[in-house]
C-alpha cells in the first residue's frame, strides 16, 4: 500500500503571501496610546514586509520597498489651503504634510456647537474620553508590518467629531500630502458621527512627482452611531512618483445609520487597500461605491468587504474600474453575512473596462452567508471599448479620442454623479480625462490590434 505522507512544508512558508481575510469585527482591545504604540512597534519589528496573494495569478508585494531609506518629515504650520480645495465648500479643513499637521480650520459656529476637528495627537490629549472610546475599536495593529508601523509611528493624524443631532451640509476636508520622495507618512484618521448627526467627509491622499520611493501607511476609522448619516469620499492621487499606499479603512454603521462611501483611486505606483464596512445595528444601510483607474505601471489591489453583523440591514456595493498602459488592478469583493443577521439584503457588482492590451484588470467576488433569510448576490461585467459605439459617435462628428472619452466618462458617470458635489465631481472627471489623454496612443494601438 502506498503510504500517505503529507507534503513537507516549504521552507520560508511564513513569508508566503497572505490571502485576504475580512476584519470581521476584529479590532484592538482598549489600552492606552503608549501601550498600543509599544505593541505595534514589537509587531513591526517581528513581521516581514507583507505580500498578498490574489487569485493564484499574481500578488501584491511590498518586498521591494526599502523602508530604511524612508524618512519622517516635519513641517511648520502653513495657513494656506491646498490647491485642490480651491473653490470647494468646507465646514472644516485639516492638512497633514508628510509627518505634520500643518493646517486646521473649523467654522467657529460649528466649534461652538461641539464639533471637534483637530490633529489626532491633540485629540489623544484634549479629548481623551472620545479618543479612548473609539481609537482602534475596529482596527487591528499587527496583521502586517506596515499596519504595525502605522499604529506605532503615526504622527499628526486627523480627528473629527460631530455631536448628536447636528446636521452639517458643507463637507469636512482632510488632506494628506506627501511633499517629496523618500518620505514615510504614517497617517491615521478617526471620525465619529454621533447619534442622529449628518456630515460629509472628504479625505484626499496627494503627491506630486518626486524621485524615489515613498510610503503612505494609512489607517482610517469612521463610526456612525444610531441614526447618523455620512457621505464619505476618499480620493487618492499619488501622482507619477513611486508612492506606495498600504491602507486599511473601516466604517461602522450602527442602528438605522447610513453611509455612502466612495473611494476613488486615481493614481499611485502601488495601492493596496483593505476597505471594510460593517453594518453593526439593525436598520443599518449603506451604499459602497468605488472608482479606480490605473495607468502606466501602476498596481492597484483592493479588498472590499461588505459585512453584516446584524439584520435587518441593507447594502449595495458598486465599483467600476478602468486600466490602461501596463497597469494592473484587482478588485476582490466579499459579502459576509454573519450568523443571525437575518433579513440582510445586499448586492455587489464590479464593472471593468480594459483600455490597453498590456493592462490587467480582474475582479473576484465572493459571498459568505451564515443566515438563511437573506439575499446576497453579485454581478459584473468586463468590457472593452465598443467599436460600434465609437463609430456611432464619430458619425456625429466626434473625433475618436472624444468618443473614447465620452465612453469612459459615461462608464464612470453613474457613480460620479452620486457624489452630489460639483467640486469633487469636477476633480474626478478632470482626472479621468487627463488619464485618457495620456493613454490616447495606447488606446488607439489596442483598437487597431483587435
Amino acid at each position, binding site marked *: 500500500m502506498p503510504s500517505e505522507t503529507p507534503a513537507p512544508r516549504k521552507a520560508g512558508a511564513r513569508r508566503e503571501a497572505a490571502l485576504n481575510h475580512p476584519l470581521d469585527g476584529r479590532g484592538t482591545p482598549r489600552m492606552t496610546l503608549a501601550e498600543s504604540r509599544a505593541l505595534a512597534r514589537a509587531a513591526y519589528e517581528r513581521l516581514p514586509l507583507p505580500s498578498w496573494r490574489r487569485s493564484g495569478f499574481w500578488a501584491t508585494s511590498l518586498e521591494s520597498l526599502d523602508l530604511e531609506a524612508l524618512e519622517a518629515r516635519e513641517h511648520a504650520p502653513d495657513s494656506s489651503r491646498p490647491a485642490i480645495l480651491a473653490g470647494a465648500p468646507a465646514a472644516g479643513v485639516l492638512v497633514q504634510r508628510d509627518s505634520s499637521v500643518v493646517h486646521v480650520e473649523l467654522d467657529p459656529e460649528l466649534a461652538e456647537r461641539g464639533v471637534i476637528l483637530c490633529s489626532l495627537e491633540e485629540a489623544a490629549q484634549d479629548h481623551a474620553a472620545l479618543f479612548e472610546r473609539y481609537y482602534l475599536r475596529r482596527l487591528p495593529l499587527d496583521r502586517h508590518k506596515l499596519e504595525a508601523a502605522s499604529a506605532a509611528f503615526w504622527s499628526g493624524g486627523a480627528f473629527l467629531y460631530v455631536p448628536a443631532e447636528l446636521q452639517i451640509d458643507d463637507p469636512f476636508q482632510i488632506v494628506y500630502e506627501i511633499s517629496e520622495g523618500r518620505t514615510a507618512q504614517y497617517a491615521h484618521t478617526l471620525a465619529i458621527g454621533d447619534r442622529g448627526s449628518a456630515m460629509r467627509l472628504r479625505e484626499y491622499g496627494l503627491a506630486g512627482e518626486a524621485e524615489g520611493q515613498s510610503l503612505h501607511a494609512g489607517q482610517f476609522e469612521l463610526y456612525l452611531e444610531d441614526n447618523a448619516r455620512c457621505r464619505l469620499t476618499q480620493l487618492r492621487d499619488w501622482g507619477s512618483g513611486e508612492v506606495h499606499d498600504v491602507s486599511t479603512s473601516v466604517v461602522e454603521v450602527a442602528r438605522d445609520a447610513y453611509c455612502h462611501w466612495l473611494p476613488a483611486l486615481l493614481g499611485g505606483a502601488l495601492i493596496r487597500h483593505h476597505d471594510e464596512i460593517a453594518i453593526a445595528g439593525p436598520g443599518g444601510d449603506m451604499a459602497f461605491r468605488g472608482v479606480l483607474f490605473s495607468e502606466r505601471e501602476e498596481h492597484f489591489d483592493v479588498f472590499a468587504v461588505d459585512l453584516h453583523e446584524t439584520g435587518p440591514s441593507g447594502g449595495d456595493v458598486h465599483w467600476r474600474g478602468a486600466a490602461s498602459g501596463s497597469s494592473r488592478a484587482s478588485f476582490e469583493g466579499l459579502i459576509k453575512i454573519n450568523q443571525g443577521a437575518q433579513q440582510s439584503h445586499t448586492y455587489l457588482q464590479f464593472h471593468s473596462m480594459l483600455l490597453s492590451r498590456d493592462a490587467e484588470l480582474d475582479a473576484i467576488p465572493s459571498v459568505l452567508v451564515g443566515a438563511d433569510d437573506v439575499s446576497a448576490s453579485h454581478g459584473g461585467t468586463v468590457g472593452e471599448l*465598443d*467599436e*460600434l*459605439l465609437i*463609430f*456611432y*459617435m*464619430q*458619425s*456625429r*462628428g*466626434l*473625433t*475618436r479620442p*472624444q468618443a473614447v472619452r*465620452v*465612453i469612459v*466618462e*459615461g*462608464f*464612470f*458617470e*453613474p457613480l460620479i454623479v452620486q457624489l452630489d458635489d460639483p467640486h469633487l465631481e469636477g476633480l474626478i472627471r478632470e482626472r479621468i480625462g487627463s488619464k485618457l489623454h495620456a493613454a490616447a496612443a495606447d488606446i488607439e494601438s489596442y483598437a487597431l490590434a483587435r
Partner: protein
Amino acid sequence: MAELEIRNLHVRTEDREILRGVDLTVRSGELHALLGPNGSGKSTLANTIMGHPSYEVTDGQILLDGDELNELEPHERARRGLFLAFQYPVAVPGVSVANFLRMAINAQREEPIKVPEFRSALEHAVKLLDVDRKFTSRHLNDGFSGGEKKRAEILQMAMLRPQLAVLDETDSGLDVDALRTVAEGVARLHREQGIGALIITHYQRILDYIKPEFVHVMIDGRVVLDGGPEIVERIERDGYDPIREEVAARA
C-alpha cells in the same frame, strides 16, 4: 447645394464582396428611396458612405462635391455635412440626449453653441419629433424602445442640420404612430432645411408619408433599376422577382 456621388463602389467585409459596383447620386433638396430585398447590400452602402471601419472599399469612389471621401474618418465625413440615421442605434451610457447633442454640435463648429440658441433649437426639434422634453435628459438610446431610438436619430438629424442624410431602415420596428411621426419629421426637415436624403427601406410603408422623387432598387450588391415613384407601386404589386429576372435576362 451638396452632391453625393457614389461611383462604381465595390465593398467587402472580411470574407465576402457585398457591393459590386454601385452608382448613385444624391443632391441636397432631393429625396431618394433605395429599395431592395434583405441582404442586397443596402445597409452596407449606408455604413460605407459614413466610413464604418469594418467595410473595405476595394474599388470605386465616394465623392462629396467632387472630393473623394474614401480615406476620411467618419467624423470628418460628418463635419462635411453627411449624416447616417442608424438601423440599430447604439446606447451611449451615462450621456444624456441633450449633452450628446451639444457635444456633437460643438464638434462640428468652431465656437461652442450659445445656450439660448441650443435651447430654442432643441425645443423646436422636440416638438417636431413629438417627444417629451424629459426625453432629452435620458441617457441616449439607453433603455430606449425601438420607436424612441428612431426618434432620437431624427432628433439628432434635426439638430445637426446635415446637407445629406442616409436613413438606414429608419422605418423598421416602428408601429404606425411612431412611423408617421418619424416620417413626417424627415419630410419637414427636407422642406425646412433643404436636406437631401437617401431613404433605405425594404418595406414601402414609410413611402406613404415621404414622397421620394427618385427610387432605386438594389439587388445583389448593385443598383439595378432607377426611376420614379412608379417603381414603388410595381414592387408592391409584383415583388422583386420580376426585376431580378429582368436583370438576369440583361446579363
